């Protein structure tokens, strides 16, 4: 059932600019670092002489949470808007498909789109490193993958929350407003206590307690998604 809804959802987001957005984020981040390293190439390469790849990843790292939170906000809102725009909920939910399947499909779709973004981040960072003349033989494959995906797992509570709001509130201004505020606040996340979820993406990559943070992200994400699902199931559709 869920896969049927998902298959229909892929069709619906065609031409809505969601894929463009999903690619723009990671490629943009890499391009920004390209500029950074391009402008002060000699200085940066000298200061990271011991571990140039590590230096590059460190520079990318601090922009990933805000990009991720913004991406989550916009992807959820754009996806939900496909249904809100012409009140398609009443048609969709009068079809022989459970609301659980509809909600789960949207969650899986958002997650998969963000996975593509994370993968693109790894690839474009790797390409940038090679362009900057960092040795391909020293490429830190694991860290390149971790920099996107580990943070995505830690950001799952945010994904569940944004999806819930986007799907159930017709006024996308509220969901987007909250999402953007959270994204901006997350830039100061390093100064927050560890229990605040906005800090989790950074913690999940840098530690301490990487595995525990990812576990917490999965758990809290699941709890919020369940709450959203229950609400979505009971909601009257106008």
């Amino acid at each position: 059932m869920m896969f049927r809804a998902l298959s229909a959802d892929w069709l619906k987001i065609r031409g809505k600019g969601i894929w463009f957005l999903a690619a723009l984020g990671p490629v943009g981040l890499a391009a920004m670092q390209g500029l950074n390293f391009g402008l002060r190439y000699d200085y940066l390469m000298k200061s990271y002489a011991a571990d140039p790849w590590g230096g590059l990843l460190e520079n990318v790292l601090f922009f990933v949470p805000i990009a991720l939170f913004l991406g989550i906000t916009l992807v959820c809102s754009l996806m939900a808007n496909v249904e809100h725009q012409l009140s398609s909920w009443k048609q969709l939910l009068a079809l022989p498909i459970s609301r659980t399947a509809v909600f789960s499909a949207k969650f899986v779709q958002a997650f998969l789109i963000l996975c593509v973004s994370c993968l693109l981040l790894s690839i474009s960072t790797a390409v940038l490193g090679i362009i900057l003349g960092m040795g391909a033989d020293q490429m830190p494959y694991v860290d390149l993958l971790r920099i996107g995906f580990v943070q995505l797992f830690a950001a799952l509570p945010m994904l569940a929350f944004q999806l819930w709001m986007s799907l159930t509130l017709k006024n996308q201004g509220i969901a987007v407003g909250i999402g953007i505020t959270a994204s901006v606040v997350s830039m100061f996340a390093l100064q927050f206590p560890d229990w605040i979820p906005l800090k989790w993406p950074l913690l999940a990559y840098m530690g301490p307690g990487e595995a525990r943070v990812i576990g917490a992200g999965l758990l809290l994400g699941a709890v919020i998604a369940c709450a959203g699902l229950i609400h979505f199931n009971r909601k009257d559709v106008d």
Partner: protein
Amino acid sequence: MTELVIQTKGLYKIYKKRAAVVDLNLEIARGDIYGFLGPNGAGKTTTIRMLLGLIQPTRGAIHLFGKDLKSEKMDILRRTGSLVEYPSYYGHLTAVENLEAIRRITGGPKSRISEVLEIVSLTKEAKRPVKGYSLGMKQRLGIAAALLNNPELLILDEPTNGLDPSGIHEIRELIKNMPRQYGITVLVSSHLLGEVEQMADKVGIIREGRMVFQDTIDNLVSTASSGFRLSVSEPEAALGLALDLGCEGVLRNQMLELESMQDAKIALLVKRLVENQHAVYRVEEQRRSLEDIFMQIVGEGSRV
């Protein structure tokens, strides 16, 4: 007894302070075209949303195909097609893609898409993005979507809303054919009696959430006659004759105004008038228009 496709018992929907639907008992038999009438805001759409499980009733039971909506919702929705208020569609997709998005959920063969487009005569326009469609075309696409899953029951909420006369005519012909050609039961709502009159077998009239009339359209029409007017050469003498025959009536503007009566009686009266050398110029039946009756029912909330 005919099988009831839709049956509601004591259905209520109460919003915070306002009762949208009150003690509603709908009964729709298989193969009927049921006209669900009422002024704007009477509770038609609320009722239809409850029938489709989009909103929860505050109280009462809904049975479709003899099954409880709460416990067998999926099975019921599989056999039902619907168009609720203005059509829902994805504007950036073409008609075919819109229907494909639904087909991926309901299953069924791809060939069905071109079949339903043929039924609503949209085949030529099928490859254009829907946002460029006229309202009539969007409405027809909505009906195509409702037909996609070969439903046994079609629920159409104001399908002709906002259409021009030719669009209304087209949709009406389409709906009329449903029971005949495909054996589909149809529930169609509207705020215009004139529109429903031409296609429905049975009507339910709802006002402020309450059902105020539920019967066949023929019975509604039969309440429309309100008497006869006769124009004759010598009205006063003629009235005396009519009163002798047991008719009730008065003289007004040199015309006889008589209460409604059986065909045999009016025939007898005319015969007597002719036998008594009256010249009969005109015999008119006075009918209230259905719209008048509708307004009266809706206005008073009483059974005619």
